């Protein structure tokens, strides 16, 4: 039987016919294959060009000074907001640490998508303290909504799951959908507001006008910090000024801090911290979508679903209040001491004896072999140093350096290694 030749006419509506002149069939074929190639090419061009176009084009805004911008921030009375926030942290932590906090894929690293699963042994998976550490590594998307000081909600978007913290009046709920567990705590009536509204906890000399606040902030920045307005930017489709904060000189590992401030409302939209060593931002928090309208009231309602395991927070109101005020760390670790000031501040933490694996007291406690392994692990990604403080191990990340001495004292700071050792030496005197 004769071969059936390809149709001549490419249009969709045409009926097929056989034969044809056969002039340049090869060329015709090539022309046809050009279609998928062209489609792919156009798509690739669109994908690579559109974000570039969206990012470029800094808006034209009237020039203002740093003080005016700070005044704008302080004067901002925006109470309602909802939107998506993207948090990217790249602190340069060893990747397996990220994996340990973030669950991780079979190939290790790049974790964060399905966190909370490795920690189910230790209390509720919905406990905020257990969940929020995952934000320390990798990239996360958050949904936030707020309506005044009494109603807020934050949700961490995970793969096919979500972790939400909902605050409504004196009720605080946390819900982890992947494990179907909820966490509940009741704020004492009086502390309900103060717990989250930071303005109410500030000391009495809190500046009463936005201008005063701006001036005070600039004064506090002092001789060690330069604060300036560095052009404009577009964040989440809104025009914004860029506030640039830079430590002057010093041994800080912080390079620059950029805060994009919404030009019309004065709400900070994006925060970027770049380490002095350059490269990618260590911390990048910014709105990808923002709406200053009032969120629906139902957004802040939560009833634990049927069958969900609810963990009640047993801590009484006072303890909770302490925690909210940031004294959590201080009360848990006796002997927290801040050495130096400004950007060069180093925290000195005297840990209880034997608390640290690999410290001298620890290795004598009978579990020698085990501790040696831990010590080996610590040594493998730390650097051994000696000084007036004795000997210890330095851990470096892109932003934070930490020194753990053999007698269990920890020095942590966003300063370079030399400055950290100097501070430790001075403290050990």
């Amino acid at each position, binding site marked *: 039987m004769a*071969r*059936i*030749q*390809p*149709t001549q006419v*490419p*249009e*969709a*509506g*045409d*009926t*097929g*016919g*056989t034969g044809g002149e056969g002039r340049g*069939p090869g060329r*015709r074929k090539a022309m*046809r*294959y050009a*279609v*998928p190639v062209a*489609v*792919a090419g156009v*798509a690739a061009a669109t994908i690579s060009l559109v974000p570039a176009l969206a990012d470029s084009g800094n808006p034209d805004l009237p020039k203002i000074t740093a003080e005016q911008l700070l005044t704008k921030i302080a004067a901002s009375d925006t109470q309602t907001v*909802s939107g*998506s926030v993207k948090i990217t942290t790249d602190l340069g932590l060893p990747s397996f640490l990220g994996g340990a906090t973030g*669950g991780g*894929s*079979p*190939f*290790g690293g*790049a974790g964060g998508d399905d966190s909370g*699963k*490795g920690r*189910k042994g230790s209390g509720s*998976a919905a406990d905020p303290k257990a969940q929020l550490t995952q934000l320390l590594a990798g990239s996360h*998307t958050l*949904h936030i909504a707020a309506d005044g000081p009494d109603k807020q909600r934050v*949700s961490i*978007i995970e*793969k*096919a*799951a*979500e972790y*939400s913290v*909902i605050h409504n009046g004196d009720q605080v709920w946390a*819900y982890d*959908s*992947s*494990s*179907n567990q909820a966490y509940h705590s009741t704020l004492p009536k009086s502390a309900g507001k103060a717990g989250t509204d930071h303005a109410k906890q500030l000391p009495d000399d809190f500046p009463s006008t936005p201008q005063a606040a701006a001036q005070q902030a600039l004064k506090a920045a002092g001789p060690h910090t330069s604060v300036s307005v560095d052009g404009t930017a577009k964040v989440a489709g809104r025009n914004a000024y860029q506030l640039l904060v830079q430590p002057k000189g010093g041994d800080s590992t912080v390079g620059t801090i950029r805060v994009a401030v919404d030009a019309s409302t004065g709400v900070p939209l994006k925060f970027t911290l770049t380490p002095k060593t350059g490269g990618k931002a260590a911390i990048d928090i910014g709105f990808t979508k923002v709406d200053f309208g009032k969120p629906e009231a*139902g*957004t802040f*309602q*939560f*009833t634990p*679903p*049927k*069958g*969900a*395991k609810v963990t009640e927070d047993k801590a009484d109101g006072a303890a909770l209040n302490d925690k909210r005020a940031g004294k959590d760390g201080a009360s848990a670790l006796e002997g927290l001491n801040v050495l130096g000031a400004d950007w060069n501040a180093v925290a000195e933490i005297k840990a209880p004896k034997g608390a640290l694996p690999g410290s001298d007291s620890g290795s004598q406690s009978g579990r020698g072999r085990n501790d040696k392994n831990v010590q080996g692990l610590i040594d493998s990604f730390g650097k051994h140093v000696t000084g007036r403080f004795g000997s210890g191990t330095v851990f470096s990340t892109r932003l934070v350096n930490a020194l753990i001495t053999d007698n269990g004292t920890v020095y942590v700071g966003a300063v370079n290694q030399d400055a950290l050792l100097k501070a430790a030496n001075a403290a050990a005197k």
Partner: protein
Amino acid sequence: MSRAEAGTVPVVRPLSSALWSLGLFRSELTIVFRRWRTVALLAVLAGVPLLVGIAVKIETRNGGSAGRGGGGGDGAGPAFISQVSNNGLFLSFASLAATLPVFLPMAVGVIAGDSVAGEANSGTLRYLLVAPAGRTRLLLAKFTAVAAFCAVATLVVAGAALAVGAALFPLGDVTLLSGTTISFSDGLVRALMIAALVAASLVGVAAIGLFISTLTNSGIGAMAATVGLVITVQIVDTIPQLHVVQPYLFPHYWLSFADVLRAPVYWDDIVKNLGLQALYAAVFGSAAWARFTSRDISA
């Protein structure tokens, strides 16, 4: 032949052309769904929710929730499994999440891979081409039939899961991932949306399968190549070192259908997924067209 067409076709052209397309599509649908192979595939797909439902039922017989509870350790079970025992509707979501990575694309790969190559192999393709339908339209009819299979396969999974879920577990108000509660009927609407999204997620695989199918005369070869590609691409999608290419892989945003269950619905990844599927359909669909219309059908 062209003489005969010239006589009849131009007179009733618009109507007959539309009828031709419809008839062609109908005959394609019949070919696809009358096959025992297709019926068996759908039966397997319907069996998955049944299996998951019974497993969850047994595990939660003495109370407690599935997934985290029983000795699973890290990352146990597919998404939504922990809510299944409290609300049967979640079995739909869990089953779709469980079948989307392997079972559904495999079934679509089998149907799409066989669509052209199978007919070329059995020798029926040239008879189809003798009919004055045109290759482009034949290909479109085949692609539409495969897309229809995507929808049917998804609905079979979702429907079977809903039936099993209703039989084994209580139904009621649905708590979304964000902790917001919606009524059961709203939950059903969202389940329908999810089924539509899952079906749309399979369009990319369908287009790739159709393209591979036009390359060869061996139906089995085309099926195996399509299914193999689906698996390979999903492995690539999990290797962190290859994160640069991952946003362009067709399975990358598959699980985005879960974003329908958030409040507010998180559209970013859903839109990306649909765009990606449309792109794959356009690129591989036109590649299939280029190949099919310029190919010699010798058998």
